[in-house]
């Protein structure tokens, strides 16, 4: 069966990275199939087999959320990584030991 894109939207590549768009697509995988194609300075995003109630705006909110998280990781990943590692190693009973 030929699937016809229902909606096709443009995401500015200055704001959205491909990774953020892909992560958002994964979050919405139970609501729509998301197709992401690179364009000139942008990404073309279209949706197929949308579930009732799905709204592309929700997808782009999530994409922005993911992008903010990726941007934050560039600044905070060292502190965040130290906290997470400490918590996990302590829980595993390995704190203080060399990995």
């Amino acid at each position, binding site marked *: 069966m030929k699937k016809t894109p229902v909606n096709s939207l443009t995401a500015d590549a200055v704001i959205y990275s491909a990774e953020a768009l892909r992560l958002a697509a994964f979050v919405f995988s139970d609501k729509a199939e998301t197709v992401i194609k690179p364009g000139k300075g942008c990404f073309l995003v279209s949706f197929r087999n949308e579930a009732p109630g799905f709204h592309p705006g929700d997808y782009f909110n999530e994409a922005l959320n993911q992008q903010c998280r990726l941007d934050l990781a560039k600044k*905070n990943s060292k502190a965040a990584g130290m*906290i997470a590692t400490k918590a996990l190693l302590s829980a*595993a009973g390995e704190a203080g030991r060399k990995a």
Partner: protein
Amino acid sequence: MALKKAAKRTEPSGPPQLLWRREGAECLVTNDFGHYAWLKRKDFDLLLAGKLGEKHPAYAALADKGFIRDRLDFDGLTAKWRSKNAYLNTGPGLHILVLTLRCNHKCLYCQSSAAGMGSRDADMSPATAKKCVDFAFQSPNPGITIEFQGGEPLLNWEALKAAVLHARAKAKKAGKDLRLALVSNFSLMTEEKAQFLMEHEVSICTSLDGPADLHNRNRVFCGGNSYAATVKWLKFFQARHAHQVPEYRVFKPSALLTVSRYSLGRHKEIIDEYVKAGLEDIFIRPLAPIGFAKNLWGQIGYDAKAFGKFYLDSLDYILKLNRSGVKLREKMASMMLDKIVNSRDPGYLDARCPCGAAIGQVAYNYNGDLYTCDEGRMVGWEGDDAFKIGNVRRDPYRKVMTSGAARACVLSSNLESQPDCARCAYKPYCGVCPVYNYETQGSLWGDMAVNDRCGLFKGTFGALFAMLKKPANEAILRNWVAK
């Protein structure tokens, strides 16, 4: 060049890392050490510009709290951070044993995803219960709390008894501080069982949703009157607590309140019921759209705003009662206040960074399956094992603690990695829940801008900080966490 650098150093320096939030004409500023201060807008601007001079009336207090770059007491602040986040060094302390999925109640909101009384293969065997205890004692945490839950745990008395005896013996040998707790609806409690529980110092917790009509509407019990059984046994344990014996400690019983849509607007009656039952704590817990409650959300659920109003009305009423001499505290507020006022970790696993999933608690299902937390187990009950971290018979402790689900929960609940949280003024006291995010927003990370739980926590923190500004309230609230 060198001169230029030296000149730069004499310029006013901005504050060290701080978090802030505008509230009317003032700003609330906080930092990672757990300190907070209220500043007028113009003083806040001076602080940001590094122009708040030593003669300013707020200077000394801000310097003590680590808000002035040139006056940082690194040793003191580091010690404070370390003590506030001590849980990062300890591993799981809370171990929830789901002794059976069966339950004789059919509560409207049942979050424990209980099975019917006739369900087969829904009980934990005594052998598995002992295995779970052994597993719990592998945690490096010097304090172990084992909580017996269900379903209704009294339906599987043999496993409960076996686990209690085994845990007590194990704690003696291991030299660990062991706490045992039972969460029961009391409908199957007998004097014989109560005696065993008291003799082995098992603390008792039940559910009390308010006056009889409300309690019984939420907590449907075909075999009798749920409210009557709850109140009867609360009185029994209260009386035993009041008349201690030298051989063992009898703990004061406690109760949990789950707020359904039917509870909204009835805060006074509910709180009065707690006072009448002689309880000194009330834990006002919102419903979460997890497990059974998710399917009935349209009937019994509500939004953060509705719960926020209920919660604030309740706090106001409790403070009013406190002023007239009644001893009662709200548990969630107490735990948050402990963080805000004392920079202490009250052990509230839902509001930690990272959250308590696996690194602070483990949920043991009836069949020995291990989950990051009880909420994660409920998701498993729906057929999605995203939060399963192993099996008590099959997987070694270290493998469980470093499993994919454990790591994913730690990473996704780290507020330093959450866009809204990383700069939120309430970050030093807050925490996110990956299970809630997964169930309501489709990912472990969630999106805090539109997350109801986040809205709820923000509302609670906002109310507590506002109350702390009023001296009369502040004295009462500080007294809640004075121990």
